[in-house]
């Protein structure tokens, strides 16, 4: 990194921190003016958050929700990648899948969750399936785009040098699909956790979604915000602790 770009990055970091601080201050001022238990300030919310974290309650429900997000997203990416690859490589497969994809892309998450709960019962399997079903079409569309753009020259070279299926997949196909997987993962994370919370609220007896429902019934805005913030922090941690390093690792060769 050059000295100039290092300075620019440092300035950007400070600007982000200042923006965050300004947001928290605005919130605190607004809460002080409102002086209502339905609009708590950041200090109040963070103290509840810390209390819940120490008690273990928050971490338990957060852990359960994250496990559901991981299972749903993992299943959606795995199934969506296989279907998307097939659609991208075969015109016939694409034609067969297209109406299903369009239908599922436009199906409201709420309907899928309700129907799957009715058909399979209020269980974790049903939740994971319902959330995955909502995400699969997005993955299919993204991976189909990547699979359709695979470089024919590389495939010919690999065939000539007799790479074999495993090496072809690992060294030729997957690296070309890596940016598309990253897009699926990032967009998927944003979409999946929202639907997981909805599905928990509708039919599970634990997880962040369930807790939100309980606090909603009590009009306990402080707890609702504490859970919302904790989830947001976890998502930020996943973005900067997992996705950004993963992206950097996969795309090292571009630098």
């Amino acid at each position, binding site marked *: 990194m050059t000295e100039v770009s290092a300075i620019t990055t440092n300035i950007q970091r400070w600007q982000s921190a200042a923006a965050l601080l300004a947001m928290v201050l605005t919130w605190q001022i607004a809460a002080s003016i409102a002086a209502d238990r339905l609009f708590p300030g950041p200090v109040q919310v963070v103290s509840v958050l810390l209390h819940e974290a120490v008690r273990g309650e928050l971490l338990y429900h957060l852990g359960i929700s994250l496990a559901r997000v991981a299972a749903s997203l993992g299943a959606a990416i795995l199934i969506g990648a296989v279907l998307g690859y097939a659609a991208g490589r075969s015109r016939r497969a694409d034609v067969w899948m297209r109406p299903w994809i369009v239908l599922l892309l436009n199906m409201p998450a709420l309907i899928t969750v309700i129907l799957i709960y009715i058909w399979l019962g209020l269980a974790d399997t049903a939740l994971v399936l319902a959330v995955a079903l909502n995400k699969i079409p997005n993955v299919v569309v993204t991976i189909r785009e990547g699979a359709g753009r695979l470089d024919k*020259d*590389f495939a*010919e*070279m690999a*065939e*000539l*040098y*007799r*790479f074999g299926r495993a*090496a072809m997949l690992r*060294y*030729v196909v997957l*690296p070309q699909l890596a940016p598309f997987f990253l897009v699926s993962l990032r967009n998927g994370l944003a979409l999946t956790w929202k639907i997981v919370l909805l599905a928990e609220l509708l039919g599970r007896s634990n997880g962040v979604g369930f807790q939100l429902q309980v606090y909603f019934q009590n009009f306990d805005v402080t707890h609702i915000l504490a859970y919302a913030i904790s989830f947001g922090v976890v998502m930020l941690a996943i973005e900067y602790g997992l996705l950004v390093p993963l992206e950097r690792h996969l795309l*090292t*060769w*571009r630098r």
Partner: protein
Amino acid sequence: MATLMLRIRIEEKTFPGDDGQRRTIFCPLSLDIADGQVCVLTGPSGVGKSTLLSIVSGVDDEFSGSVSGRALPVGMLFQTPRLLPWLTALRNIELAVPGHAPDAARWLAAVGLKGHEQDYPQRLSGGMARRVALARALAVEPALLLLDEPFASLDQATAQAMRRLLQDSFAKRRPTTLLVTHDLASASSLGDRVIVLEGSPARIVRDVEISRRDEAGSARFRLGNSTQ
């Protein structure tokens, strides 16, 4: 006399043209290349030399006709280097010779790129990338070697070094070789035979066998039988 090995019989090869009509590249073209022969293909740009290499390599099978006697393994230097950009120069070669990592490093050094093992293709110049691709083609110890403009984008000294490397490789292993070049100096110094393609559809207009240099040091040329 060398055994006849590679038999190329193309009845027709067409490409879709810009106007929607199909453009005929070969119609017909036949060529026999003896085992271990170094055959230089030359002719104007766009005549179909690279297409012929692709057909011979087996990566292009969209033509009517046949190629028989294709020996394995095949080493090929494509028109573009076709290095996987997410792998280092060394890994690009290693993948073509799995289980023979030291050979990969040795070939990279042989093309003058020692010290560039961990460089990604994007960091290499066009000429360096071509040399990595040449190292890959030679590393597989090919029985059939197909080279598309191996000296393009190389400075004079490097081109000369690569010519010597190829001469050495031809002398040691005698792969059947098809080499596309516009450089007639390379053609005469490397080839046992020079074939000139011309026209549309392309046909062989010259098929010249080159006798190796005699004791007096002068090259002798003999006009072979044109197969078209």
